[in-house]
């Protein structure tokens, strides 16, 4: 009964935000062109990196394309859900409208994370899937049950980690009020997810696996595609994802205690 209530509310969210976003139709077209150009640009950049000897960090060009594909999908998800919603938190807090969210008889995290949707990100997700299918063909990936389930698990864990990172940073708004720039920092770090982790120096690799687990987000799912991943890495990713989800939830509830409404 509870779940069906949330589902019902979510379909309403979808309906209203799609209706308002589709007002700007040319905008969606421009965003689609942006997504395509940005994919072309990053493949172009990759091809420059592979000019020298065809390997970076032990990855071949065709293999590195898988990372691009996964990155594009995750970026699409970020643009569809995380970015429009979580930047809204900043506005809620600055203008004091978070009060109205907290008064609603529904979980505040649910409301705040899923209220809006940006349809142009979906095009990017589709683009990413196209690239992935192309990669599956050129890398001759075996499509069997274990591969499909493992890649599904790892990509969902990546999404959870990504969501928690975004949510975590947006939550800090409760204390710092303006976090646009912190989001900008997160964005620039996430940019690293376009490249195989092994292509960085040892110290950066440690940094990107412990402090900001960007390594987990794209590299491990790509290794699953290539059949290179060890079981412990996948288990570790699941563990990290769970830890991140729980801490971000706890952090939100903790932050709400310090919330003092603004200007109302």
């Amino acid at each position, binding site marked *: 009964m509870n779940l069906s209530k949330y589902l019902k509310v979510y379909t309403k969210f979808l309906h209203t935000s799609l209706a308002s976003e589709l007002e700007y139709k040319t905008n969606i077209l*421009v*965003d689609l062109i942006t997504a395509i150009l940005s994919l072309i640009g990053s493949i172009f950049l990759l091809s*420059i*990196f592979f*000019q*020298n000897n065809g*390997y*970076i960090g032990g990855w071949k060009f065709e293999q590195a394309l898988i990372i691009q594909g996964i990155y594009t999908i995750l970026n699409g998800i970020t643009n569809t859900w995380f970015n429009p919603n979580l930047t809204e938190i900043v506005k809620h807090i600055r203008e004091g409208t978070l009060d109205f969210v907290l008064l609603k008889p529904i979980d505040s995290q649910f409301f705040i994370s899923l209220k809006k949707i940006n349809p142009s990100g979906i095009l990017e997700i589709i683009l990413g899937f196209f690239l992935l299918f192309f990669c599956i063909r050129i890398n001759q990936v075996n499509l069997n049950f274990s591969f499909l389930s493992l890649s599904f698990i790892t990509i969902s864990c990546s999404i959870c980690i990504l969501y928690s990172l975004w949510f975590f940073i947006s939550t800090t708004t409760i204390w710092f009020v303006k976090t646009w720039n*912190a989001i900008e920092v997160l964005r*620039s770090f996430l940019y690293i997810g376009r490249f195989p982790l092994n292509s960085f120096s040892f110290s950066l690799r440690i940094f990107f696996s412990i402090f900001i687990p960007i390594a987990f987000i794209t590299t491990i799912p790509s290794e699953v595609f290539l059949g290179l991943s060890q079981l412990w890495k996948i288990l570790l990713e699941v563990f990290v994802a769970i830890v991140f989800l729980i801490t971000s939830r706890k952090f939100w509830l903790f932050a709400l205690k310090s919330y003092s409404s603004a200007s109302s």
Partner: protein
Amino acid sequence: MLEYRVEIALWAISGIIPFFMLNIWTNNNLNESINISNIMLSRYFLCAFFVRQFSVVWVVFSFEEDCLMGKISPYLIQPLNPFFRYFAQHLAEQITRFPFALIIAFFFFIFNPESIWIPNSGILILSIVSTFLSFLIQFLIQSIVACLCFWTEKASSIERLLFIPTLFLSGLLAPVVSFPAYVKSWIYLTPFPYLIDFPANLLSGNKTNISGGLSMQILWIFLLFPLFKKIWSEGTKKYTAMGS
């Protein structure tokens, strides 16, 4: 501007992508194919970071917000073009950003002591000039895009579209010399390599055509400025105050 110290520090940190790129370049010995030593490459990326810090432009986002909120109306009555207001804001923030950029450069030199160098004063002045010209080009391009607000309301998505070629072709992620020949043949005719690659090469002491680069920058400014004037006068005629 000093009110927002933390924000500006974060801004400075968010510009560190060139260093990650440098890490990929040196860690995989990618410089072998383009005949640039590791030290010169690290100087290049440090300079690219600096040039980027002092040529970032966000006028379209401020203008869009002001336009949608109807704040532009009072500005329009004033005898000064409102873009001067944004221009002054940008300059003020660049000055505030300077110490943070220096701190990041300091850390960079701690990790890469061999790449310390001191450019001679002539080169330093020329590269400051060319960085400022690069800022002007970007400011003009974005102002032109911002004027599209008068027609479409959401000009920032056009700016995001334009940002993609700027990101990949300006030399922020890879120096233009490393680009394949089929791109190099036409890229020097576009404004992109003069935004970051040219000033960064100049400052870091890499090989570059100084007079050619500077004259291309000035040429682009002379091309863009009349365009901006035109679109501004057309746009203000079209303007209908919103939200007020």
